[in-house]
């Protein structure tokens, strides 16, 4: 469940966000997303990829 997920530090991400992260090698752990209750959404992963592309260090 999402509630338990957060408590256990499990990643709470949308399936599309997960898939994109997997393909692009983005580590989702510790990331807070912009979706409901901090769910990591595709747009959040895209933002990381973009920053990476621009050579900016990922945000904590």
């Amino acid at each position, binding site marked *: 469940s999402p509630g338990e997920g957060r408590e256990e530090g499990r990643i709470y991400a*949308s*399936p*599309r966000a997960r*898939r*994109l992260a997997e393909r692009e090698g983005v580590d989702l752990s510790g990331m807070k997303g912009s979706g409901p209750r901090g769910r990591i*959404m*595709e747009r959040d992963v895209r933002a990381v990829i973009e920053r990476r592309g621009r050579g900016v260090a990922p945000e904590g």
Partner: protein
Amino acid sequence: MSYQYDLVVLGSGPGGYVAAIRASQLGLKAAVVEKDKLGGVCLNIGCIPSKALIHMATLYRQAQETLSRTGVKVDTSGFDYEKVFSYSRQVADRLSKGVQYLLKKNKVDVITGEGVLEDPHTVRVGDARYTGKFVLVATGSSPRSIPGFEIDELVVLSSTGALMLKELPTRIIILGGGAIGMEFAYVFSSFGVQVTVVEMLDQVLPFMDHEVVEVLVKDFSKRGITILTSSKATSLVKTESGVVLTVEGASGRQELQAEKLLVSIGRAPNTRGIGLEEIGVQLDERGFVKVGDYYQTAVEGVYAIGDILPTPQLAHVASKEGEIAVLHMAGRPKEKVLPQEEIPSAVYTEPQVAGFGLTEKEAKEKGLSYKTAVFPFRGVGKAVAVGEVDGFVKLVYDPETEEILGAFIVGPEATELVHELLLAKRSELLLDDISHMVHAHPTLSEGVMEAARMAQGWAIHV
């Protein structure tokens, strides 16, 4: 400067009344100005009465087509369409009263009369003036007519005139094969009226996937509805007994006769004569209001939503736009403009049609790598049990990421079934989420599951 209200809303349709209630929930003191009945077009002369007619039309058809096979005699000789009309008015009135109750309960003031914007913060109604920190314009739309086909509501009807008919004609021509035109075609033809639909484009319901529309058209044709696509009405002559419409199509010119003509070729925004341009609100060449990400107009403090925008003219779009606008006013912007691909379209004929996102054609035109999966209701036990096996669930998806690009359904309860898929789309789920979920048996929703499985190559019932 101090205002009487935080928000003055102009128009109480599904855009306006929902926005006013939402504003009140968010702590804004709100008023709604309405010159006609509460609930706007949708509740009074749109979505709701039309669905009441459709419901009755379906009962009428089913009784004759199916129930009569059990030895029940269905004698329609005493059928009185006026009773159907009355039912549709009762339903509309009940819901309009419901809006009145809701506005009151939410402490929204209702101001009766025609409102005009005097300045960005002042709405004049007759001699009275109401000021608001924000003004939300939600004045909706009116039936469009074209020169030579002027609506008189006696012989040449708009949707309003068609809804208000107390007697059925023997024949009717419907100019325009959009959702409204097709729904009336369904209603009238179910009650035995001879219906001809004339559509300029090469497809009725042009916003829907073409395969889905084909099923509907086939069904309509079987029932005796004539559908002329790529056909242009070039002239109209009123006669003693009705109208003669000249139509030019691929196969030449023909003259159609009927007692009534229903013109359903679109709806024009109600944006003139209410002070919009005078205070600086910008309109596009067709008269629609130009807005920003949160439905702000060019004038600070003035917002616009619903049918007066160049977004799809749908009740649920109007309501959502209103919600987004008032959240912005309240300083709690959450979402920006409604993404086009998250807007469901629905046509409430039988079979029903519903969908969202990219049609197959659009996906092709965009050069996307896409695939489609089409699962027929024939393979769905519930559809067989209720005798409604025409139609299917069609998915347009990205084969690599398994993302849903679009979904279109034609068949029983399509307008409800589409929401499971829309939730999947909007919450960034993938085909797996639907294909592996247990769906109750026997339900029509199993068709949704099977379509997702089909895309993944493991549908069972096909």
